[in-house]
């Protein structure tokens, strides 16, 4: 037993899976402690308008913060080249290439335009673009888009100094706070009193995705644990009883097991979930329902293993030594199948989490507004509010990655254990 535990710990596959799983588990425990607050609170705009990033309070940048002026030559060029987005550069190039094909102007072929060189790119744009020029290959919509782009590019160079006023509540007049804010004035970000960090932006409800993701991971792990425990307990008990006692008890157990085998578990799950009222469908209830529909394979495999064990000589010897049936089952049968049961349990946790995700994506998962699950997050972002169309990758990619990591780590642990306990698979 000890040597087996040691070889599990030495197994690279098991330890990799274990480390990933424990890291996820620790994250769900530690993150809420260092970043407290209600994960479900709606802090931002709806519909994915808050991209991932660090948000600096505009007010605090102007109010009471030292400004620094750096005399860097071309500071304005840096600003403009950073402001000019990648897709705008691509579009400028597109227009220039189409124009170049039409007018045969030297320097406007695809290879010669460098979109990284902001000065040259904008120079070409202003040299050739005008809304009167008619480029044949463009659609009307594209022509309009290029007109809007031209206006936007002009605005990049509006570097009139700003003046900032504050309202004096006593006199009702505006006092000048800053006489001018120039484009080469800087502040130190750490001086700003109010910064919000949203590493994964906000979702369609305007909640912090990272906070919600951590909560959802914890809930999903809980669902997996409950579903796995329920399924394994039922499966183990029925399998042990059916396999060891045999006879009519076995026949009755196998009747129900076969019944549940031929009915697809997921269909049963959908029907039960649909049959429950909205108010009853909490996370734990859904987990129990998942567990109640997925015990079948554990029962079958435990039963067949017990059947081959019960006629072994060591069981006969134990009987001859006068041990009672419960004692024989616990001491002479259970240890022999324990490794298998632990492995089945790990897979049940993994499949429980996946089943919840599947149910939730169909809209039949936990019905609650007080917590989130991984499946519900996918449902909200993909099914209900089309994060795809908004390009809001941060609302669903991290969720998919977490589901993937959990199920990957659990399966890796299972494979690692299998290699230890199943001598045929040993390296």
């Amino acid at each position, binding site marked *: 037993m000890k040597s087996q535990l040691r070889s599990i710990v030495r197994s690279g596959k098991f330890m990799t899976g274990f480390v990933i799983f424990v890291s996820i588990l620790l994250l769900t425990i530690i993150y809420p402690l260092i970043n407290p607050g209600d994960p479900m609170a709606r802090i931002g705009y709806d519909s994915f308008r808050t991209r991932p990033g660090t948000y600096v309070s505009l007010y605090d940048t102007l109010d009471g913060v030292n400004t620094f002026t750096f005399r860097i030559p071309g500071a304005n060029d840096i600003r403009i080249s950073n402001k000019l987005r990648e897709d705008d550069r691509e579009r400028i190039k597109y227009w220039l290439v189409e124009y170049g094909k039409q007018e045969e102007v030297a320097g406007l072929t695809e290879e010669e335009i460098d979109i990284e060189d902001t000065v040259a790119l904008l120079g070409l744009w202003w040299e050739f673009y005008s809304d009167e020029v008619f480029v044949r290959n463009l659609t009307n919509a594209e022509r309009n888009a290029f007109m809007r782009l031209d206006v936007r590019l002009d605005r990049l160079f509006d570097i009139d100094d700003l003046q900032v006023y504050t309202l004096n509540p006593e006199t009702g007049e505006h006092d000048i706070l800053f006489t001018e804010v120039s484009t080469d004035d800087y502040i130190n970000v750490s001086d700003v009193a109010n910064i919000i960090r949203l590493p994964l932006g906000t979702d369609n409800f305007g909640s912090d995705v990272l906070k919600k993701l951590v909560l959802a991971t914890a809930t999903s792990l809980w669902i997996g644990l409950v579903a796995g425990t329920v399924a394994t307990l039922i499966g183990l008990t029925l399998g042990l009883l059916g396999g060891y006692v045999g006879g009519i008890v076995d026949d009755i157990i196998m009747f129900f097991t076969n019944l549940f085998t031929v009915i697809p578990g997921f269909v049963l799950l959908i029907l039960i979930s649909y049959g429950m009222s909205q108010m009853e469908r909490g996370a734990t209830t859904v987990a129990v329902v998942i567990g109640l529909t997925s015990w079948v394979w554990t029962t079958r495999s435990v039963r067949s293993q017990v059947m081959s064990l019960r006629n072994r000589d060591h069981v*006969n010897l134990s009987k001859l*030594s006068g041990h009672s049936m419960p004692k024989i089952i616990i001491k002479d049968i259970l*240890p022999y199948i324990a490794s298998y049961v632990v492995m089945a349990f790990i897979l049940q946790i993994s499949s429980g989490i996946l089943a919840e995700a599947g149910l939730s994506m169909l809209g039949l998962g936990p019905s609650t507004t007080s917590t989130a699950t991984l499946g519900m997050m996918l449902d909200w972002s993909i099914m209900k509010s089309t994060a795809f169309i908004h390009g809001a990758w941060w609302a669903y990619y991290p969720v998919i990655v977490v589901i993937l990591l959990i199920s990957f780590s659990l399966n890796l642990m299972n494979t690692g254990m299998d290699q230890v306990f199943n001598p045929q698979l040993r390296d």
Partner: protein
Amino acid sequence: MNSHDRQLCLSGKGVTKIFGFGSKKTLAVDNVDFEFYSGDLISIVGESGSGKTTLIKMLLGLTSVTEGEISFMGKKRDIGSRRKKKEYWKGIQAIFQDPYSSYNIFSKIDSVLLDCINMRGGRLLPRKTKIEMMREACSFVNLKYDEMTNKYPFELSGGQMQRLMIARIFLLKPKILLADEPTSMIDACSRATILDMLLKLRDETGMMIIFITHDMGLAYYLSDTVYIMEKGKIVEFGSADEVVLNPKADYTKQLLNDVPKIHDPWEFSKNRRKDAQWTEQFVV
């Protein structure tokens, strides 16, 4: 052999065991009668699949009897409840064929011996006495208790495991011992040692041994009475001399013919004689 002077220990009438139902029905033991007397060493000989092990399991009460009845110490055997079974098993014990699968690999071997002491009603004995009993049992089978204690079964050799099984019987001292081919998985050197120990134990306790084997020579060497089984039936029985020197059933003759002899050329079976001649010609 005057068997009427001795006490009838274990007997059966029309004992039958059927596995399966309907078309899948298998007759493992077919209407078998037997009378085993206390103190005897009885061999049951037969080839694989002749129902020897099934008969043993029925005698032990590990498998139900389909038909017929078994009597123990002159009375009809009653093992309906767990307590009665436990009482029965105080009188009848077994050594199995494969020592490697006879032990629970998860518990230390001490627990096997302790179970025996507990079964004999020694549950409340002080730990020191228990250790002394285990030490005595181990030394009976030439094992050192101090080397055995706190070990797991896989740390022992097959011969050591089987000797420990005999130590177990030494502690239990049953009236009847069923030995199901106890030497078939053991190498030839350990085999003689183990047989010697069984005989020594028998001399000391006067128990009856039912020895299951497929080796006619071994049966003749060991036993007082020999039962020959074929396809679930007992085809011949009697004292060892009677059966071996004057076999009546064809099956017994065949079994005797199959005993390997060192000096004579080995005939595998009568059907193969032609092949053997052909081989001789070919070689010459």
